[in-house]
């Protein structure tokens, strides 16, 4: 008969406040095959683990069930404890009494009874458990970083500096991301480009980094340590090995009125273009949507201008495959446009800008060379209104979260405006000032006190144009709800930071979870902020949630360390939760009939053909075999198998039936 030990955790009060944990331990203790059952306040703590280890030895337990939190939280902890006491770790199971019971129900008799049922199921399962051995797989010590903004740059450099190879892919023609668009940075007002561009160059020149710009991830297969990435190199139409980056083609290109992405639509660019003068690589691509030749079949002026014959009209997209061991997602964020706000002009007033557009106006590399001028008529605005929380923290707009960076950049914008336009008047409408960060609050106070920015606590109801002025109607809640009306020359909306376009599709390609706003989800909100739920894929920067530069850089370095730690192993230990085709003694060999339905069902190409041969080498039968390196343990093949010849180790049909039957036998 089995000798099972059951350990019920109070989880502080998380479980014991709604579940009668003592009764659970008492009733389970009376079950057939249970040799020992106790409850304790913190089972995961050192004394808690000691209880388990001692009980394994004292009662000679052959199975352990811990009724506590989610196995995703502490299964490794308890399995390790069992292993230390000499029990095969896969004979330890967890019943999730917290997420599946105490957190979702009120305190009641039924709640305790449900907890008892949950534990009972696992006791029945553990009786059928068999010792399993971990699987060892090799590690490809090369990382893929997706996104070449500051997060991707930092992660790439940090990984590369540990001596490992990095492949960095960037969707745009240049790396640099949003940070390269910024004018100055808070809270020091140092120039964004001055601190970023040297890093961009370092990336391009680093011997361990292979940079693919104008490239996107096509698909990712495999698992931690052994991914296979297919990367689409979009046709640049320019041969980079011969192009010298002289820029003559750009000057001669007749299509000059394309809104510049780098200038957030405030400037223009040509069809053959380099996004900005400090771009890395500093060589052009042809935008085929807008190029005269691709549109109408005639022009080719750039080809005539090019001294080295680098234009490649017929170049097609190329798909390359790279093997990598880890992936860092650093795809950044986007900002909502002004067309999101009917009440603020729906994108129809030229002088209503987003914060990112204002960055371009204030930047020395921008369309006005750093002078604050109205896009409509080029005059210098004498009065300017900044509206914080334009979309953020507004459930009616579908964005209940705080975009985090706007309070700080709005203070910076107002400050830059006051520095550049002497005698100008700036007003900031805000809900709350969230300036949490080193020297952040001081920075905002400086804007208010030294640079005389007028801060009004209240919302703006409407912005409309009248006689060339933008009338801003708002309320001052600190003046008892008094209505405020300002005739402004320019309005800047701190529009909400949102997930980058395509992030949902990318997440699906990578099997990474994402939140309702399409930001990638971290594995644990506190303790695993850079990991995802898919092993071997890590997060850096604003693709996880809006964040500022220091936080992004910190997170990128964190992700890099995780990658480096992974690469410090020559092989990885994987859970043996994989499918297995049964094998029997001759003359049966297996119940598998070789129909290979499993092969069509397997999403991971893990099914192989195994030939069973007689002593004379003649083929007896061909049956299915599972490649345990590729198998992810999803169980689809088990459902497909007509002869019930496949089982998932640790979750066999027999084990699952035992769990279900334990509920029916009452």
């Amino acid at each position: 008969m089995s000798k099972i030990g059951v350990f019920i955790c109070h989880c502080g009060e998380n479980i014991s406040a709604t579940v009668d944990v003592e009764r659970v331990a008492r009733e389970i203790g009376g079950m057939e095959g249970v040799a020992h059952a106790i409850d304790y306040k913190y089972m995961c703590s050192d004394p808690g683990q000691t209880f388990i280890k001692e009980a394994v030895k004292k009662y000679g337990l052959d199975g352990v069930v811990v009724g506590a939190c989610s196995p995703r939280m502490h299964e490794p902890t308890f399995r390790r404890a069992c292993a230390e006491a000499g029990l095969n770790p896969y004979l330890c199971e967890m019943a999730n009494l917290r997420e599946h019971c105490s957190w979702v129900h009120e305190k009641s008799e039924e709640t305790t009874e449900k907890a008892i049922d949950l534990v009972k199921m696992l006791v029945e399962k553990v009786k059928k458990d068999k010792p399993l051995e971990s699987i060892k797989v090799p590690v490809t010590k090369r990382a893929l970083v997706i996104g070449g903004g500051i997060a991707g740059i930092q992660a790439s450099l940090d990984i590369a500096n540990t001596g490992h190879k990095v492949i960095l892919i960037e969707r745009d023609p240049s790396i640099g991301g949003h940070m390269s668009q910024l004018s100055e940075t808070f809270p020091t007002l140092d120039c964004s480009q001055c601190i970023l561009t040297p890093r961009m160059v370092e990336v391009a020149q680093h011997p361990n980094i292979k940079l693919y710009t104008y490239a996107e991830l096509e698909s990712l297969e495999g698992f931690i340590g052994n991914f296979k990435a297919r990367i689409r190199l979009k046709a640049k139409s320019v041969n980079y090995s011969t192009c010298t980056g002289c820029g003559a083609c750009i000057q001669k290109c007749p299509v000059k009125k394309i809104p510049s992405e780098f200038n957030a639509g405030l400037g223009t660019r040509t069809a053959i273009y380099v996004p900005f003068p400090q771009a890395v690589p500093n060589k052009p691509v042809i935008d085929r949507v807008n190029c005269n030749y691709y549109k109408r079949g005639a022009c080719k002026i750039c080809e005539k201008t090019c001294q080295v014959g680098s234009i490649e009209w017929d170049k097609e997209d190329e798909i390359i495959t790279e093997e990598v061991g880890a992936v860092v997602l650093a795809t950044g964020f986007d900002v909502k446009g002004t067309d999101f706000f009917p009440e603020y002009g729906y994108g129809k007033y030229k002088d209503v800008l987003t914060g990112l557009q204002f960055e371009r106006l204030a930047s020395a590399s921008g369309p006005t060379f750093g002078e604050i001028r109205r896009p409509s008529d080029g005059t210098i605005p004498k009065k300017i209104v900044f509206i914080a929380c334009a979309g953020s923290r507004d459930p009616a707009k579908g964005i209940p979260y705080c975009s985090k960076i706007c309070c700080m950049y709005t203070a910076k914008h107002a400050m830059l405006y006051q520095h550049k336009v002497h005698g100008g008047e700036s007003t900031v409408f805000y809900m709350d000032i969230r300036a949490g960060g080193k020297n952040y609050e001081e920075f905002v106070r400086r804007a208010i006190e030294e640079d005389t920015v007028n801060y009004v606590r209240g919302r703006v109801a409407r912005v409309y144009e009248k006689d060339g002025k933008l009338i801003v109607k708002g309320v001052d809640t600190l003046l008892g709800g008094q209505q405020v009306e300002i005739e402004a020359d320019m309005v800047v909306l701190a529009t909400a930071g949102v997930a980058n376009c395509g992030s949902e599709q990318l997440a699906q390609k990578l099997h990474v979870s994402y939140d309702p706003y399409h930001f990638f989800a971290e594995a644990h909100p506190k303790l695993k902020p850079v990991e995802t739920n898919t092993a071997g894929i890590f997060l850096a920067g604003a693709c996880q949630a809006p964040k500022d530069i220091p936080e992004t850089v910190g997170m990128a370095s964190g992700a890099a360390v995780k990658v480096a730690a992974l690469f410090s192993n020559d092989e990885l230990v994987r859970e043996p939760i994989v499918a297995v085709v049964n094998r029997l003694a001759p003359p049966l060999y297996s119940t598998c009939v070789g129909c290979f339905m499993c092969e069509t069902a397997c999403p991971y190409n893990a099914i192989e053909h195994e030939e069973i041969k007689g002593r004379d080498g003649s083929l007896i039968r061909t049956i299915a075999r599972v490649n345990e390196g590729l198998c992810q343990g999803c169980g689809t093949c088990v459902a497909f198998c007509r002869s019930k010849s496949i089982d998932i180790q640790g979750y066999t049909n027999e084990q699952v039936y035992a769990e279900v039957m334990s509920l029916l036998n009452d």
Partner: protein
Amino acid sequence: MKIGYYPGCSLTGSSREYNESVVALAKALEIELVEIKDWNCCGATAAHVMNEELSLSLPARIMAIAEEQGLTEVVVPCAACYNRLKMTQHELEDDGKRGRVAEILKMPYHGSLKIINVLQMLETYGAENIKARVISPFAHKVACYYGCLLVRPHSILQFDRVEDPQSMDSLIRVIGGNSMDWAFKTECCGAGFSVSRTDLVAKLSGNILKDASDRGAEALIVACPMCQSNLDMRRGAINKTLAQPIDIPVIYITQAIGLALGIGANELGLKRHFVNVEL
């Protein structure tokens, strides 16, 4: 097309011309309006700030008797009535409140009625059908004014874009009019103070008229009797607050479409306005 009809008090009193134009237009479009028998006041503007049970029971009775009469859809031209009926439906999704109201009414209330405003009725009828019947295009530059009650609160009414509604504008374009972009289409006219603080009404309505007039509107188009009476009946008081008197008329969307369809001015009640309508 057959549809239930709840005119409400305003349309039988101060805004008879709205009722006349809705009825005339429905007739021209061959929409059969079936008036709810024995309807009562919806309780706007006073009940909902005085007594919650009363404010829910009054509209609930209207809807309950409409249900009893076998109606499934009711058009409510008055924006205030429309708002109260929709709000009541929403409030009565709460079982407790619904039970209490049924006790008061002593009749069942199911909440199954579809309540629509005039703009929704015309949209359902179809822009193409209206266009086909236009005899003399409404070739005027006008400002469509929606006010507060027709579109707010958006979470409950779910009608049009709350900050920049467009339904009236598109109907005006259908009949050949030029609906302009302006700043006050959802600002308050002061209707809540139409009896107690007429000075505030004059100021708020003055702002609306001034912006429309400054941008060259020949008329204001409305779909709410309160807005209409404030902007029209109070014009004398409004003009006293303005540097320049404004004489642009304020007409209902149903009157504008009626004109385009060749319905006579008398039939549309256009002679009843305080500010002369010469369009």
